[in-house]
């Protein structure tokens, strides 16, 4: 049997099993980073720049060092023995990226508010914070720049040595753009601002480093323990097997913990230097100032169509504000959006041109969706305007341009091949939940009473399951890593199973969904399948969790690994029962001889034989194996979302009345978990659309440094969501699955924005940039009143 014969649905796969990881989380028995302390642990507190841009003239540590319990104060120059600066892992072939050195502690100058200048290490958590306040730093302020379009015009420069604020240019395109626009009867142009947001997991970052006897053990609230181990070894000049990284329980990441952070390197370095464990727990104020942020693009969009709605060309120029430094994947993020720039539509010519810009702000990098929410937002809001200008129904325009389902696998203009899709089907299902005629009647009636209600749609696809190496690795997109995933399955003597995955979950529920996958393939209950993750010392080398890759790459690796075990089990059963291996099949919880179901063995019996070496001639004893899986393609989840809002034209306040999502992530492993991912994803995007914005003033001072002024949505600002699914299997993996962790976030912001614009069109408003705050909406209405049309 080959793995592709394996039917995806089974006894456990497809069931809404409640999660195995939950009891410890519910009872307060989980161990997050701040719950771990070792004897002799020292605490670290950072001295951070209050300036957006300044030269460091001097640092006076003396008062801090005089405090009781303070062991050391370090500045950038003290870390001279690091093998190099913090890594940028994206080296796109043929593209030059200006890349300034970025150190765990600043050397000579600070480039954004919060840039660390010194670290105080001492015995008491509170006392090191006091001591950090005693470190006197003399700064010579330099002019700062925060607006990326201004930054592109010239000085001041964030990094003088480049004599420009431009970081790089990168393009992806295909088809004849000029011919496409020449053919168009209608061309719509828009400037779409996709503002800066924070990942804001509820657990801030934290690290505990313990260097002893030549070995480093480092616990970090990270999504990427395997990457972190590699870079720690490199930067500290240690042999890789001497470094162990453990991601304990991680309280959410959303991309913000897909990073190699200076604090992680510093803690490890300081533990080695001081011979004691060193711990640092980020405060929320630090988290909102220095944990990498997301989005922050200005998109110039131009789309052309014929009178009948047929799209002819799309050109997008992206100005990507990358902040002050390149972090692990900073400049690669806007480029990810280019891979799905044409969305669910057939467009013969598509071109994305990206220019990256340094500003005196916190660096950006991957935040839930990473480039794809921006791409989806710009095309979906532009499609609505195009429909308006064509005098065509918005959904009709979409339908007319959908890639038809019989064209999959579908190659789009710039060479990416979408694995599978049925966009018509998800839209149809959405409209079963939303009675459009009734909505329009209601909308009319409400308008007569002064209530502005609108409906917005978003039909999307996204590219995820990050892999294959061929496409995203060094020879392709330029990330300096392979993007396979690993799995190891160990069946114990009793038939209990421990399975290791190289994915590193932080809320996604792998301990349950991955156990369901293994259980089906080995004929055991998920209860006796333990999924181990997030520890570089226990399982095989892994590639971690991000980009909705865990299931489609890691889950598939595990499925294949379990099938290898099942194959061996069948050979052992055949040997013991004197049958042919081809005649052994798994029926429920037993491997039985086809045609005589009373002759068979359970996995426990097979394991017993395997460990007693009662195996066929030439076969190794034991029941354990490892698999690495690098797929042939990405996977492309898709769906159709609708949002209904009320807008109060007097105050500009937007209220989400209903949100309906129909998503297709291929075969469902656990519907409960899928719905949960979709809910969270939608909430994240509604947060961006209506409330959340990282703001700096013109001088580079951070305005949104706490949860008082960075507005995460609360329960009272969100509705309950209505979710449904279609299942179009992916041909890329045997499970037929696609990712779902980011889909909601990718889909939702244009649905909300389009709903608001739909509500306000009678008032002459035809576009508003996010966040759709009362002030901005009110301004748009006033502007429309003045001009009889608006662009704000």
């Amino acid at each position, binding site marked *: 049997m080959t793995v592709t014969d394996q039917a995806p649905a089974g006894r456990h796969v497809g069931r809404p099993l*409640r*999660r195995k*990881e*939950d*009891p*410890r*989380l*519910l*009872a*307060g*028995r*989980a*161990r*997050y980073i*701040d*719950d771990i302390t070792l004897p002799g642990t020292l605490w670290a507190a950072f001295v951070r720049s209050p300036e957006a841009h300044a030269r460091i003239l001097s640092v006076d540590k003396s008062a801090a060092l005089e405090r*009781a319990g303070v062991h050391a104060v370090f500045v950038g120059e003290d870390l001279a023995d690091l093998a190099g600066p913090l890594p940028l892992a994206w080296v796109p072939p043929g593209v030059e990226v200006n890349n300034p050195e970025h150190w765990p502690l600043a050397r000579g100058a600070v480039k954004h508010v919060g840039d660390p200048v010194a670290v105080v290490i001492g015995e008491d*958590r*509170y*006392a090191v914070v006091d001591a950090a306040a005693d470190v006197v730093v003399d700064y010579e302020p330099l002019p700062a720049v925060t607006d990326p379009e201004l930054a592109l015009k010239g000085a001041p420069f964030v990094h003088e040595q480049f004599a420009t604020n431009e970081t790089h240019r990168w393009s992806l395109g295909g088809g004849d753009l000029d011919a496409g626009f020449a053919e168009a009867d209608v061309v719509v142009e828009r400037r779409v601002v996709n503002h800066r947001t924070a990942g*804001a*997991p*509820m*657990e*801030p970052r934290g690290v505990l480093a313990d260097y002893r006897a030549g070995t480093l053990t480092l616990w970090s609230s990270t999504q990427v323990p395997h990457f972190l181990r590699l870079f720690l070894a490199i930067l500290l000049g240690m042999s890789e097997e001497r470094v162990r990284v453990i991601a304990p*329980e*991680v*309280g*959410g990441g*959303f991309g913000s913990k897909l990073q190699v952070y200076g604090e992680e390197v510093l803690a490890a370095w300081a533990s080695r230097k001081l011979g004691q464990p060193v711990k640092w727990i980020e*405060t*929320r*104020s630090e988290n909102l100032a220095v944990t990498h942020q997301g989005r922050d693009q200005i998109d110039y969009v131009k789309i052309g169509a014929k009178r009948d709605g047929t799209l002819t060309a799309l050109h997008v120029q992206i100005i990507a504000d990358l902040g002050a430094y390149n972090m692990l994947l900073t400049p690669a993020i806007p480029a990810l959006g280019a891979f799905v720039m044409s969305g669910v539509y057939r467009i013969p010519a598509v071109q994305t041109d990206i220019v990256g810009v340094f500003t005196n702000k916190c660096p950006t990098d991957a935040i839930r969706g990473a480039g794809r929410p921006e791409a989806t937002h710009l095309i979906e809001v532009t499609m609505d305007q195009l429909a308006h200008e064509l005098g065509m129904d918005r959904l009709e325009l979409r339908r007319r341009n959908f890639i038809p389902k019989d064209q999959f696998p579908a190659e789009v203009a710039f060479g990416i091949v979408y694995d599978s899709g049925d966009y018509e089907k998800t839209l149809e299902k959405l409209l079963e939940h939303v009675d459009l005629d009734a909505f329009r009647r209601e909308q009319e009636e409400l308008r007569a009473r002064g209530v502005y209600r609108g409906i917005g749609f978003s039909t999307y696809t996204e590219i995820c399951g990050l892999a294959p190496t061929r496409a995203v690795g060094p020879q392709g997109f330029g990330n300096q890593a392979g993007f396979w995933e690993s799995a190891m399955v160990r069946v114990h003597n009793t038939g209990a199973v421990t399975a290791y995955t190289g994915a590193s979950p*932080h*809320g*996604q*529920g792998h301990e349950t969904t991955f156990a369901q996958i293994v259980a089906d393939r080995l004929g055991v209950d998920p209860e006796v399948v333990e999924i181990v993750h997030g520890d570089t010392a226990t399982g095989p080398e892994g590639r971690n969790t991000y980009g909705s890759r865990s299931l489609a790459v890691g889950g598939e690796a595990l499925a294949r690994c379990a099938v290898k075990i099942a194959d061996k089990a069948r050979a052992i059963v055949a040997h013991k029962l004197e049958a042919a291996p081809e005649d052994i099949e798994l029926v429920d919880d037993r491997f039985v001889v086809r045609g005589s179901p009373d002759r068979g063995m359970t996995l426990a019996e097979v394991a017993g034989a395997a460990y007693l070496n009662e195996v066929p001639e030439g076969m190794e004893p034991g029941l354990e194996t490892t698999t690495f899986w690098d797929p042939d393609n990405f996977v492309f989840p898709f769906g159709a979302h609708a949002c209904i809002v009320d807008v109060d034209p007097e105050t500009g306040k937007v209220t989400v009345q209903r949100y309906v999502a129909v998503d297709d992530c291929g075969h469902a492993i656990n519907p*409960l*978990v899928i*719905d*949960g991912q979709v*809910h*969270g*994803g*939608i*909430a*994240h995007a509604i947060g961006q659309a209506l409330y959340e914005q990282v703001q700096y003033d013109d001088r580079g001072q951070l305005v949104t440094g*706490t*949860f*008082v002024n960075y507005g*995460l949505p*609360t*329960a*009272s600002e*969100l509705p*309950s*969501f209505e979710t449904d699914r279609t299942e179009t299997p992916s041909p890329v993996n045997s499970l037929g699955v696609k990712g779902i962790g980011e889909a*909601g976030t990718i889909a939702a912001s244009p649905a909300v924005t389009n709903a608001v614009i739909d509500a306000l069109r009678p008032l002459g408003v035809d576009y508003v940039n996010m966040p759709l705050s009362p002030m901005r909406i009110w301004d748009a209405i006033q502007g429309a009143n003045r001009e009889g049309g608006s662009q704000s």
Partner: protein
Amino acid sequence: MSGTVNVRLTVNGVEHTLDVEPRLLLVHALRDELGLTGTHVGCDTSNCGACTVHLDGKAVKSCTVLAVQADGAEVTTIEGLGTEDDLHPMQEAFWNNHGLQCGYCTPGMIMAATALLADREGEGMITEEEVRHGLEGNLCRCTGYHNIVKSVLDAASKTGEMVA
């Protein structure tokens, strides 16, 4: 540096006497002095509610209370509500309804939710809107609150008093 102060606390039914710095927050006394790490810290401005515990039966954010202010009080933390093998009905409802993902907000959310229901005992079935308002002080980044609200309504419908 000021000296220490003597504080008596009854936590989850067990009496403790602690010598603490006057500025020590209750949440740090619980976590660092008593080892009750189920109560979490998610912010420094009293916005997130991850640190919610019951102080003399009322839900409070333990990051906004000094340990000395809790002198003589009864504190219940998530560890005092139920155990992994014997979950409180609210914990069970969160489990059944997938009311948690990363779990970081969960203890605070559950402590806030149990207090919310207890506070309105005898007032009839709680509505979705009341639950959403009642949990306004607790942030969750993972769930979009959908399944949290569902969990609380489910728990309410199963705990006699709360049902109309």
